[in-house]
């Protein structure tokens, strides 16, 4: 099998004062290229922590994670940043756009970091694809929540990521906007053939992916395919 992400027996512990809390306990799974999976579970079950570890935002306390055969847990922070820039896209619940630059500039940032030139057309095309061709010079504060999330989606896809991590992408949006954003996200994911890792509370949303990992109290309780 051709795996894009391999998680082997990872554990994550946090120290709070003199106490140590185990947030994730001995979790293992693999994701194949192009697969879509959802991570679900109640609050405090460790969903976001697992997403952070898989995306190389943090290091596990034990175990190993490899993304595209790159062993993230043995890399330093700047190497992991490089991996994220080359292969990973992100979408967050609260959009996380840079407030002091325009929608267009927000979209171009991953390629700017990569050092690529002639990126303006690609950014404009993407903004047009998410329906914001007339908002490219707007600042995040001048956009609605749904529009901000569209900009975030465009930003996530501009670097042609191999894998996309989305943390509650519709959590801050009303039902109608959430549905539009979900459609857009899955449509672009299909077109780009990107692997998708989605963290959500929303079981109907999770069912849009082919596989669901269910966490409970830091343990992988269930790994099931959506029928």
């Amino acid at each position, binding site marked *: 099998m051709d795996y894009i992400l391999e998680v082997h027996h990872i554990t994550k512990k946090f120290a709070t004062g003199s106490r140590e809390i185990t947030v994730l306990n001995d979790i293992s799974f693999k994701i194949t290229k192009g697969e879509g999976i959802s991570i679900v579970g109640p609050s405090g079950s460790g969903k*976001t922590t697992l997403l952070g570890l898989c995306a190389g935002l943090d290091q596990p306390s034990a175990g190993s994670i490899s993304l595209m055969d*790159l*062993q993230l847990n043995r*890399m330093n922070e700047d190497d992991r*940043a490089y991996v*994220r820039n*080359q292969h990973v896209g992100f979408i*967050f619940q609260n959009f996380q756009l*840079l407030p002091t630059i325009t929608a267009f500039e927000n979209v171009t940032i991953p390629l700017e*970091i990569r050092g690529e030139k002639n990126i303006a057309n690609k950014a404009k095309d993407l903004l047009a694809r998410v329906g914001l061709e007339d908002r490219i010079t707007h600042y995040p504060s001048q956009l609605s929540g749904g529009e901000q999330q569209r900009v975030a989606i465009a930003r996530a896809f501009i670097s042609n990521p191999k894998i996309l991590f989305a943390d509650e992408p519709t959590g801050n949006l009303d039902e109608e906007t959430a549905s539009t954003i979900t459609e857009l996200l899955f449509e672009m994911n299909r077109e780009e053939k990107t692997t998708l890792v989605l963290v959500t509370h929303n079981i109907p949303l999770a069912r849009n992916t082919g596989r669901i990992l269910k966490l409970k109290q830091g343990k992988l309780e269930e790994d099931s395919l959506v029928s």
Partner: protein
Amino acid sequence: MDYIIKIKRKKINLLKDRWIWKLAFKDARHNIGRLFLFISSIVIGIAALVAINAFNINLQNDIDDQAKELLGADLEIDADNEEFTTEFISLLDSNQLIYGGDAEFPSMVYFPKNEGSRLIRVKAIEGNFPFYGEIMVWEGSDTETFYGGETVMIDENLALQFDIQVGDSLRLGRAGFIISAIVTQFPGNTTISTSFAPSVYLPYPRLEETGLIQYGSRVDYHKYILFGDKSEEEVLALLKPSMDKYDYRYDTVEEEKENLGENFNNLYKFFNLLSFVALILGSIGVASSVHIYIREKREVAAVLRCLGASGWQVFYIFFLQVVLLGFIGTAIGIVHGILIQYLLPYIVKDFIPIKVNIQFSWIPVAEGLLVGLIMSVLFAVLPLSNIRLISPLAILRSAIEPVKKISKFRYFILFCMLMFPWLFAVSQTKSLIQGSLFFAGLLVTFCLLWLIGWLIIHFTRRFFPVRARFVWRQSLANLFRPNNQTIILVVVIGLGSFLLANMAMIQNSLLGQVEFAGSGERPNTVLFDIQPYQKNELLEFVDEENIEVQQFVPIVTTRLKSVKGRTIEEWQEDTTDHIPNWSLTREYRVTYRDSLIDSETLITGEFISSISKTNDSVFISIEQGMFDRMSLQVGDEIEFNVQGLPVTTYVGSVRKVDWQRIQTNFMVVFPTGILEKAPQFYVLVSRIDQREKAASFQKALVKKFPNISMIDLTLILATLDEIFDKVKMVIQFMALFSVLTGLVVLSGAVVNSKYARLKENVLLRTIGALKKQLVGMTLIEYGYLGMFAGFTGSLLSIVTSWILAKYFFEIEFFPDFISLAIIWILVSLLTILVGWFNTRSILNRSPLEVLRKEV
């Protein structure tokens, strides 16, 4: 399966990365307001530095340019208390040197117009002196009749004090004169020096008719030489043998420059200290404001890290902003500094005898630029380096703190941060020891304030009043909760009050010195130059005026003939001893009496009160300083030349003398029964409590005994008060830089704590806390901090001002607890005010508005 664990990343030159520059610029454009504190810290620190350094350079240049005008001639020769010998005058004449001269001594002046009188300095001018420089006079004045020997001139202060106009008359001793000119500036004089003892300028040939120079009169004789077509070396070669023979001292223009430079040393030191403090406070401001800024930028940094930016890329975005704004702040500071230096000559004009011409100089601009950039970068780098370590995970969890890594880089920066103020202090004071002492003093104060801040946190937590009311508990708990600003606020506020309190205490000690000398039953009036023939008549007059005579002291002028069996010449030839030449050759004014007075304490030996037989050995009492200086022992022989007669004496006792007291104190006291027949004059010491009585007594005294002068301590006190008011103004103006920077830093620290408290206050507001309660909590919290820090700063200032008074000014220390209390209260109120001002933005808005916008 093989996994890759090391990435081969493309090398990127970070500073050539266009997007870093673009993002830095765009982000800074939106954050100018937030970086206001950062820019302000640099602007004030650099403005102070540039203004002071530029002024110092201009002052030095003007001293160089105007030294000739200050001296009034090419060479000044000083004969001390004796008239120049005819041999020396002949030498000047035979060499066809152009010269002038003067005789200076204190005396009383009397104005018949309004019967006013006061102690002045007579300056009897011979020839066309001054040769250089211009005598500035009131309109309508005439200096020609003065140089014609017909009239006198007086200083402006004197004219203003007694409402005197050109054409009025005055009396000096026995003679009357018409005033033809009111002098506003005589080369070499300062306003301050003339307010202590204003001058009356008299043509030298008219001196004798005043009858003021009598036995015992203390007159300084000077000759002023113009080199003409001769060189300095030629003139000195001609005159030096004769000057050495008669022990005349001389000053060239070059030496005058050096002397002036030394005189301004304290002014430079004080200014440099202020620029040092302003700059250090500015540096704290830089560090504090960048710390706040970076705290706000954590989320942006986390997003960039998440999208793949390296730690250094993120660091450079904000580093570029800091460098750019640091440069802008430095430039604004330089412009302000240049403008402020134009004000300084007006502020200090009363204290300096030269006209300061402000000219633009590149040196302080270059210094300001260099120091500004170093300051903005060095003190910003440490808080900035935190952004490099922000985890991308902070995007998902805001509570994630940057990893605290003590890297070599951080150690290096910390080392540079310590070196910068030290090197700066050394370069400003141009002395390794003084600069190091400044730095050490500041470091110790910092450490102590830091410790106090830590103790406040520790003890508040330890003895927390769990049963106190909610508002009190909340505000007290803010002192030790996470993200508290207790230590930084205590350091900043404490340092501000420390500086202010030190200034107040030193001023009080200097003033107290004089007030103490005249307090209680201590003498406050001294009459001097009393001749033997006036003794009885004067005592009768004083009795009639109902003035109590506390001391009536005879004074005999003597010189040393031999010490410990060796003549003065032998001592002078011996280069192995450490006895200063002046202590061997000077004139000693001695007295005789049968007991010690209250300003004297016997240290060793026995005070011999009198001798009864003419062939008894004469045991004298020596002052401790003279005893040590001349390496004497009790029993050593000292032979005096008393007006031509040799008198052999032995050291009988050693006394400690309190020289600060306004009364007659002596190096040498003879027993009674030996000097009574020697030529002598007298000093009368008394106490007159009412100002009016002193004035009327002085008026009557001048009329009846024109040669006798009177020192009125209350008048000196009034003059000193006036001078201190002017000094205070200079100090306060210059200290304004430090205070302003302190306020910026204080605001920075409070803003910092505002962000730390923002979420908590909004949540409290959301769950129903009243505005009154939040205001109460803010005021109490900042009240505690202001009180503790102000109190600590003031308390520390007692120690440092004691050290400064004792070792630097060498005066008695008088703590001023009232000023301390005022400073303490003001600092506390100011802290509360700044605290309230900064939190008012949260208090005045709805919780939802704040929650949406900032949380």
